């Protein structure tokens, strides 16, 4: 019997080895603040994209309001660091604050998952959209956190190392989820939900898990974002631009592919930065790209294909050499 190697793959060790680099580089002043910021944005976007890809790409659902989860996480984590927790412990409590934001967002993900049991397609798109709008509009109505004027006062707790670490964690967790019975269940929902149920897949469980996990990481990304910018307002987490951006990144990089999400997020973030001189025309280019993508390459750059190093060893079958003998078993039934 073929036993999967119990050792984690090489790629994760390699990626982990870069972590100290992300600590050291900024400390030694070897990388200018602007590049640091771009790096951090890339990381945050990767986390958002990978999460949404789980729901839209692997599960084939229509979630278009992902920024709503980000907003929940951002506000919860910001409230914690600014009002609840003592300032001097900020840097140490940061990971817990992020997790708290993620959990709050995960709860929201649970709420959105429930309508997904009975609705799919366009209707679910509207539900997620409505959710995004409701979150934004609810925050706008809470005077205590500044309403439409926004909330600030956060310390800049986010740095390259934290972003890198969380990005790796997100990639690892989502990758493991995908290559398990839950991931296969999620894929089967995309292929044929009814048939999936009839072969023992608990589709509700899978849907909830996908939404909750995607929302959790979006919440973490929100927390990282809040403590990078040190200022957040409801408009940052609206359908446009944030949710639309995340959609573009998912469909650009490739649906159903973790490597694709990394690619899409990186390309998009970097190109958007490069296009800064275009000013407001950037936001004409972004939706145009989305439309063109949908028409000409809806599955994205790495659609449905995974980057080899991300695939766990047990998944790659070596074709059995010469084992073509037909056992005295099933008579040919065709």
């Amino acid at each position: 019997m073929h036993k999967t190697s119990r050792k984690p793959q090489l790629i994760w060790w390699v990626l982990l080895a870069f972590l100290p680099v992300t600590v050291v580089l900024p400390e030694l002043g070897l990388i200018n603040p602007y590049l640091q910021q771009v790096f951090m944005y890339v990381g945050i976007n990767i986390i958002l994209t990978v999460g949404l890809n789980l729901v839209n790409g692997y599960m084939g659902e229509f979630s278009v309001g992902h920024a709503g989860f980000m907003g929940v996480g951002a506000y919860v984590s910001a409230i914690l660091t600014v009002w609840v927790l003592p300032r001097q412990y900020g840097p140490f409590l940061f990971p817990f604050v992020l997790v708290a934001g993620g959990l709050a967002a995960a709860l929201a993900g649970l709420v959105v998952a429930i309508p997904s049991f009975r609705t799919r397609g366009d209707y679910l798109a509207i539900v997620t959209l409505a959710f995004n709008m409701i979150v934004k509009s609810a925050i706008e109505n809470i005077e205590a956190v500044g309403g439409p004027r926004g909330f600030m006062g956060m310390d800049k707790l986010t740095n390259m190392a934290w972003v890198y670490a969380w990005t790796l964690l997100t990639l690892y967790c989502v990758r493991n989820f995908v290559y398990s019975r839950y991931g296969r269940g999620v894929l089967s929902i995309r292929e044929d939900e009814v048939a999936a149920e009839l072969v023992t897949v608990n589709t509700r469980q899978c849907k909830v898990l996908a939404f909750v996990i995607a929302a959790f990481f979006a919440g973490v990304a929100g927390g990282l974002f809040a403590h990078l910018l040190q200022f957040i307002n409801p408009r940052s987490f609206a359908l446009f631009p944030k949710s639309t951006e995340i959609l573009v990144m998912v469909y650009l990089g490739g649906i159903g592919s973790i490597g694709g999400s990394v690619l899409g997020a990186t390309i998009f973030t970097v190109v958007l930065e490069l296009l800064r001189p275009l000013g407001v025309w950037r936001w004409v280019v972004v939706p145009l790209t989305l439309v063109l993508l949908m028409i000409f390459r809806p599955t994205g750059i790495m659609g449905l294909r995974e980057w080899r190093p991300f695939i766990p060893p047990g998944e790659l079958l070596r074709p059995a050499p010469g084992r073509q003998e037909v056992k005295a078993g099933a008579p040919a039934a065709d």
Partner: protein
Amino acid sequence: MPLLQIEGLTHYFGGLRAVYDFNLELEPGELVGIIGPNGAGKTTIFNLITGVYVPTRGKIVFDGTNLVGLPSHRIASLGVARTFQTIRLFRDLTVLDNVRIAHYSQLRYGVASAIARTRAFLAEEDRVRERSLELLRMLNLERYASLPARALPYGEQRRLEIARALACRPRLLLLDEPAAGMNPGEAARLMEFIQWVRREFSLTILLIEHQMRVVMGLCERIMVLDFGETIAHGPPEEIRRHPRVLEAYLGRGTAL
């Protein structure tokens, strides 16, 4: 103790009566057929048993457990598996994955174990992979394991659908028109195959089929439906000559 007991099964779609007072007792190991003109309600009965619809009225008891109201995946994990009239494979997934997915309820690990890739998780995954490959081997599909399901020829796709159903470890297998689209030669081989599957996996089989040769050749008992009602029930020789059956298929006045 009968494996499957259906009593008074009746189902309405809005005002349309699809199934009326369907009764059946299946003993373990039997191979029973359901035939009838199109629209007679045969697939609806399969859908009712497997929980796709909740019956308007009636009882369905499988091995002592009441199936009515249970979600489909629960019914499937209790041991009821089915195939479809039109093949419903997971077309973009590999052949191996199609079979692995059906092991969903048999895998015991939780999300946390999956994400952490614990030893227990890896052991379970290995076990399922092996079992799936073994199943493919037995059905002569092993060489296709890494191919996407849609790449298979029609006959192999039908076999794969059965392999996937078998992966659920069923005791009752519902086959919905397995011979659809087959010529007589292929249908004959299918009959052998079904007999083999029944022996090899100790199954009870309920079969919907239009090709009379297959039904008469395989089934020990046959139930005939027309407009949702059971119009005849008995062994093949009886059904073959039954006036109401002939009337349902060929129209009034053609009997004898």
